[in-house]
C-alpha cells in the first residue's frame, strides 16, 4: 500500500440543467490526502469545494448528477463500488462532518441512539460495548458529562456541543479519512478555536487524514499542512501551507490572501478582487479568472490553463509566468 490515503484524479461533476443540458460544477480536479495530514480545500462560495467532497462520499443525487474521473481510497476505486459496498465505507472508513451541526443531527432521536446507530451498523459490538464506546468518544471530544449527554436531544445542546457530537459520531468507527465541510463556520470564534484544537488532536492521535473544506484562510493557515485553492470549479493552485502564504503564484490566490483583513494590520482600505464569481451556466472561455484578473492577457481569454509545477511541490494554473506578471504590473 502506498502512503496515499485518498487520491482524486480528473474528477468532473456535472449537474442536470433543464431537460437535456448538463453544466459542469467541477472539472479536472486532482489531489491526494495522506494519512495523518490535514489538507485544506479553499475557495469562495460556488467554487466547487463542497461538490468535490460530496462526490468523494458519493452523496449526490443520481438522477441529476453525473461524476467521472477516479476516486481511489486505499486502493479501492470508489466510483466503481456498488452502493452497498460504498455504504460500508461511508461512516466507517470515511466520515464526514457538516457545517450546520444542528441540522445534521436528527432532532427526534437521542444523542446516544444516533451514536449507537453508526456503531451497530459498522461493527459487531454488543449493546454494552456500544454504550461504553459512545461514552469514550464523547469524552475524547471534550464533552464534560458524556453519560448525561447521551440521553439528551440535539436541541438541548449548544451549537459547539452539537459539533462535538458530530465529530464524535464521525470518529466513533475510527475512520481513516475525515472530510470536514466548513466545520466551524457556524460557530463563534472561541468555540471554533476549541473545535480546531480537537481536530488537530484527532489527527495526531489516530493518524487520521483530514480534508478540511473552508473559506477561512485563517483556519487554513493554522491547521493545514497543504492547501488546494479552487476557483469556479477548477483547482488553481496547490502548495504546502507556508509556501502558499509566502509565495502565492496564482493571481486569484494572491488576491484572496490580500483581501482578508488581519488583526494588527489596520489598513484603511483592503485590496479587493473586482467583480464576482461567474455563474456556473455562463463560464467565461479560457482562464475562468481572467475577467477579474489584473494581469489578464489576450491569450488568457482563449487558452485553457493547466496545473503545472512552479517549484517543487507547488503547482499553479496561471498561464503567465511570474516574470510575465511582473512585466504586466509595471507596464
Amino acid at each position, binding site marked *: 500500500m502506498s502512503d496515499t490515503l485518498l487520491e482524486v484524479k480528473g474528477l468532473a461533476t456535472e449537474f442536470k440543467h433543464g431537460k437535456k443540458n448538463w453544466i459542469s460544477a467541477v472539472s479536472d480536479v486532482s489531489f491526494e490526502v495522506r494519512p495523518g495530514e490535514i489538507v485544506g480545500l479553499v475557495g469562495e462560495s460556488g467554487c466547487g469545494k463542497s461538490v468535490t467532497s460530496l462526490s468523494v462520499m458519493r452523496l449526490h443525487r443520481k438522477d441529476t448528477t453525473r461524476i467521472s474521473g477516479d476516486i481511489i481510497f486505499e486502493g479501492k476505486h470508489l466510483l466503481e463500488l456498488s452502493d452497498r459496498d460504498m455504504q460500508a465505507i461511508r461512516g466507517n472508513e470515511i466520515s464526514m462532518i457538516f457545517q450546520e451541526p444542528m441540522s445534521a443531527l436528527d432532532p427526534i432521536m437521542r444523542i446516544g441512539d444516533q451514536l449507537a446507530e453508526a456503531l451497530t451498523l459498522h461493527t459487531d459490538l454488543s449493546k454494552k460495548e456500544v454504550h461504553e464506546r459512545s461514552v469514550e468518544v464523547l469524552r475524547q471530544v471534550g464533552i464534560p458529562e458524556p453519560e448525561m449527554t447521551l440521553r439528551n436531544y440535539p436541541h438541548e445542546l449548544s451549537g459547539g456541543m452539537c459539533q462535538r457530537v458530530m465529530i464524535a459520531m464521525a470518529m466513533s468507527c475510527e475512520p481513516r479519512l475525515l472530510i470536514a465541510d466548513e466545520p466551524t463556520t457556524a460557530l463563534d470564534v472561541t468555540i471554533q478555536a476549541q473545535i480546531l484544537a480537537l481536530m488537530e488532536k484527532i489527527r495526531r492521535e489516530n493518524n487520521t487524514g483530514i480534508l478540511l473544506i473552508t473559506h477561512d484562510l485563517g483556519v487554513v493557515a493554522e491547521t493545514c499542512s497543504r492547501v488546494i485553492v479552487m476557483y469556479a470549479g477548477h483547482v488553481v493552485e496547490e502548495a504546502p501551507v507556508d509556501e502558499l502564504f509566502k509565495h502565492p503564484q496564482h493571481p486569484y490566490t494572491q488576491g484572496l490572501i490580500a483581501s482578508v483583513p488581519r488583526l494588527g494590520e489596520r489598513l484603511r*482600505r483592503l485590496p*479587493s478582487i*473586482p*467583480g*464576482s464569481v461567474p*455563474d456556473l451556466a*455562463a463560464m467565461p472561455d479560457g482562464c475562468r479568472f481572467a475577467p*477579474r484578473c489584473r494581469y489578464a492577457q489576450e491569450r488568457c481569454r482563449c487558452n485553457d490553463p493547466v496545473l503545472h509545477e512552479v517549484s517543487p511541490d507547488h503547482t499553479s494554473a496561471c498561464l503567465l509566468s511570474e516574470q510575465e506578471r511582473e512585466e504586466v504590473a509595471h507596464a
Partner: protein
Amino acid sequence: MSETTTSQTASAEALPKAQNPAKQFIKKFTQRKSAVAGLAFIIFILIIAVIGPSITPYNPNAYDYNALLAGPSPQHIWGTDEFGRDVFSRILAGAQLSLGTALTASVIGTAAGVVLGLIAGFFGGIVDSFIMRVCDVMFAFPGILLAIAIVAIIGPGITNVMIGVAVFTVPSFARIIRGAVLEVKSELYVEVAQSIGCSRLRTMFVHVFPGTLQALIVNFSMNVGGAILSASSLSFLGFGASVTQAEWGAILSQGRNYLATAPHLVFFPGLVIFLTVLAFNLFGDGLRDTLDPKLN
C-alpha cells in the same frame, strides 16, 4: 485618502441579460403538460359558457315527445331526457349557469376571505383570535353541509346557492391568506420597510399583500373546481337550479331516476363536471409548481 472615488471596482462584471419575468413564467408553465391541458380545457369551457346558448343544435328547453329518453344517436349525440330535450344542447347551454355560479361564488367568498385573512394576519392579537375562532367554528361543519344549511334557511334558488358556496369558501381563504401574511411578515424585507420608515398601511399593502398573491391565485383556481362541484351537488340535491333550468347538477339530478334505463343521462353531465373540475385542479397544481420557488 486622496482619491475618494466611490464608483471604483464594482461592475467590471456585466449582469446577464435582463429576464422578463412574464416570459420566464410562461416558459416554465408550458413545460408542465398536464397544467397546459387543464388550461386549454378551461379556456374551451369558458368559450362554451359564453357562446354555448347560441350554438346549441336544438333548443335546450324544447320538448320532443317523439324521442323520450333516447340513447345517443346521430340526431341526439348525447341522447335525450325524459321530456325529449337534447342533453348535448342542455349541457352546452348549462355551462353558463354552472360556471357562472361557481365563479361568482368563488370571487365573493375569496374576496371576503382575503380581507378577513389580511386583517387577522397583519394586526394579530384579539382581532386575529376572534376571526380565526369564528373560522374554526365554520370548519367544524363539513363544507357542503354548511352550504345546505344556509340554502335551507334562505330558501332554494341559484342565487342562494351562490351565497351558500361563497360562505363556506370564506374561512378557508381567511386561513390561507392569514398564513401567507404571517409568512411574509417574518421576511426580513418587511422589517426593513419598517426601518426605512414606512407606515403600517404602506407596509401592509406594498410589502406584505403582494407576497400573498401567489397563494391567492393558486388556491382560487383550485377552489373554482370545488365550487363547481358544490354548486352541482346542491342542484343535484334539489336546492339549486329548478328542473326546468339547464344546469349541470340539475341535469345529473334528473337523470338519476333513469340510471338503469338511460345511463347516458347521468354519464354525460357527470363526465363534463368531472373534466371541468379536473381541469381547474390540474391548472391550479401547475400554477403552484411554477410559482413556488422551492419546487424549482
